[in-house]
């Protein structure tokens, strides 16, 4: 009997699995009022006037005291889609909605999510004419503290929203220091954070502004036939791709092989660097791209694409910085081998002396070194900028925004950086 118990115990332990977490995005299409054909899109003046820091008189126990509200857009096949995002101060929560106007009211329909857990649900918000919509819908809205009240309800998961929430306009969004880059890691967010699209995909690049990003860091590797692609890890693995039978270093495969057999976690193809930069330039308003160098071979092919897309962005009238990230000495030496390295925009993670040597535009130390305000001042005095990476703990993000003098923060939680930056006084 004892043996059987031991065997059963062992078998049970052997067969036991790790708990799998998942976030099931709620279906937000059930609000009939929002779907009515007479509901109209909001105009740019209204959208801009709605942006600001809002108090949360009702719902603060779930989302905190304040929310920073900002609009973003993406262009798909010539159509522009606008999203309003609210970045909360508690549990790295945010909401993402679409907005319309109907009979003098403003309606917002979407979902909320907490990044510290798998909590999510439907969010429906309304600004009645008497709560500020009549002012917002004028040609020149004059917004003051308390002049906009957003009322709404949210729910958990797919349930109908029942829990009330109220947001009251407090002040405009902070914009100092400017420009400040909210740079999102892995093209906008990690797959492991259970986002609806995969890291280092074009879909993530198109999504990340909804999370508050103004820039992206993307990880570059080369395929066997020399195509620069976006991929973070050393090897193909189930953290980032679906099971397909391909294993080992991604550099073992040609782009055609990867394109045919491999799909990222949410079904996207591994994008080429060209596809990614194309999306940034022509489909988003992102103003910063950090090309993180995950390879030690020649930087020339990436430099050529960098030049091409800086020119394309300029032709579009876009203020877009594309910098080559240099995380280590190997990449630094490859960069030095470029004939025109002093005029090639770069971000250097090494010492300030190295930054000076290659005339990098940006110095980017690791967050564990602290705020380093004295060194940042030196870099600023040289006409360069300083970014810090990769800051994910909310308390650290708050400290870097409030006490540091950096010009940008790289994070896996851009919504948390956005909250801290926009509410900073």
């Amino acid at each position, binding site marked *: 009997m004892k043996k059987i118990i031991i065997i059963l115990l*062992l078998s*049970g332990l052997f067969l036991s699995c790790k708990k799998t977490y998942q976030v099931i995005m709620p279906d937000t299409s059930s609000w009939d009022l929002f779907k009515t054909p007479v509901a109209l899109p909001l105009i740019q003046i209204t959208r801009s006037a709605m942006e600001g820091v809002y108090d949360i008189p009702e719902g603060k126990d779930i989302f905190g005291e304040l929310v920073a509200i900002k609009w973003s857009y993406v262009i798909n096949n010539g159509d522009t889609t606008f999203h309003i995002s609210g970045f909360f101060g508690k549990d790295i929560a945010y909401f993402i909605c679409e907005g319309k106007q109907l009979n003098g009211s403003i309606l917002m329909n979407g979902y909320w999510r907490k990044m510290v857990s798998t909590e999510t649900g439907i969010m429906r918000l309304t600004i009645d004419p008497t709560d500020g919509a009549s002012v917002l819908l004028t040609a020149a809205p004059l917004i003051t503290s308390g002049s906009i009240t957003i009322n709404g309800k949210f729910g958990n998961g797919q349930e109908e929203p029942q829990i009330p929430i109220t947001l009251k306009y407090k002040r405009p969004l902070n914009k100092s220091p400017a420009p400040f880059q909210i740079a999102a890691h892995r093209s906008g967010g990690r797959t492991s954070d259970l986002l609806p699209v995969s890291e280092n995909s074009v879909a993530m690049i198109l999504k990340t502004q909804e999370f508050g990003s103004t820039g992206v860091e993307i990880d570059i590797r080369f395929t066997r036939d020399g195509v620069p692609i976006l991929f973070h890890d050393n090897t193909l693995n189930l953290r980032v791709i679906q099971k397909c039978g391909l294993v080992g270093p991604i550099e073992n495969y040609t782009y055609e092989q990867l394109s045919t057999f491999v799909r990222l976690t949410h079904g996207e193809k591994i994008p080429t660097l060209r596809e990614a930069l194309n999306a940034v330039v022509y489909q988003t308003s992102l103003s910063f791209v950090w090309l993180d160098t995950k390879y030690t071979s020649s930087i020339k092919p990436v430099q050529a694409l960098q030049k091409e897309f800086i020119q394309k962005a300029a032709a579009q009238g876009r203020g877009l910085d594309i910098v080559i990230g240099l995380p280590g000495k190997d990449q630094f030496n490859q960069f030095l081998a470029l004939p025109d390295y002093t005029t090639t925009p770069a971000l250097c993670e090494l010492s300030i002396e190295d930054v000076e040597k290659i005339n990098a535009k940006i110095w980017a130390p690791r967050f564990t070194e602290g705020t380093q305000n004295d060194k940042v001042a030196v870099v600023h005095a040289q006409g360069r900028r300083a970014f810090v990476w990769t800051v994910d703990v909310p308390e650290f993000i708050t400290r870097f925004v409030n006490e540091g003098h950096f010009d940008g923060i790289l994070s896996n939680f851009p919504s948390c950086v956005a909250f801290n930056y926009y509410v900073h006084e």
Partner: protein
Amino acid sequence: MSKGVILSVAVMAVIAINKSFAQTTVKTDKVKTKKTLVLYVGGGLANYLAPIKIQPVNLQNNITRTSATGTIRIMWHPGYRLNLGIESGYSNFYSYYVKNNGVSGKLSLHAVPLLLVWSMPIIKRVNIFYGLGSYLLTTYLKYDGVVKSKTFSLGSNIALSYTHPLSKKLGIAAEAKWMNAFVTKDNLLSLEVQMVWKFLEF
């Protein structure tokens, strides 16, 4: 590695320690136990159990999940109930053909286990085996060129074996084995016939 695996190893270790203490008592009674090395060599059929999601080429029906498998294992029988050994072998996890824009190709994923194995008899002639270690996985891809790419995945196996003695040193065994590569989430169930040879006794 999952908590379950760590706990199972811990339980195994506790059993081993208990048994060694128990044997200490036996040794004081001056009973000399014979130590043997036993070789298991065999083969059979295996079926890949884990789900495969090959979205790009959508060839779920063309995936070959059943294939031949082989095992080689050397066990040290110290004369106690718990035996220790090493195991390797060869399995084809799965393979499939593709045709994309007129170009044909084939992909197959193979595995070579490299495991430390414990075993113990549970009833007469029936042994349970538990292996823990790594699987060396190899992709063979023939499409737009040929690629042979390798990676390691932590893994384990558990097997139940019935051995029928043919002579004092030889036996034939039937074994059911479940192989699990944790990291790559590959599972295989195999049924094998094995020759069991007690090749060294001291």
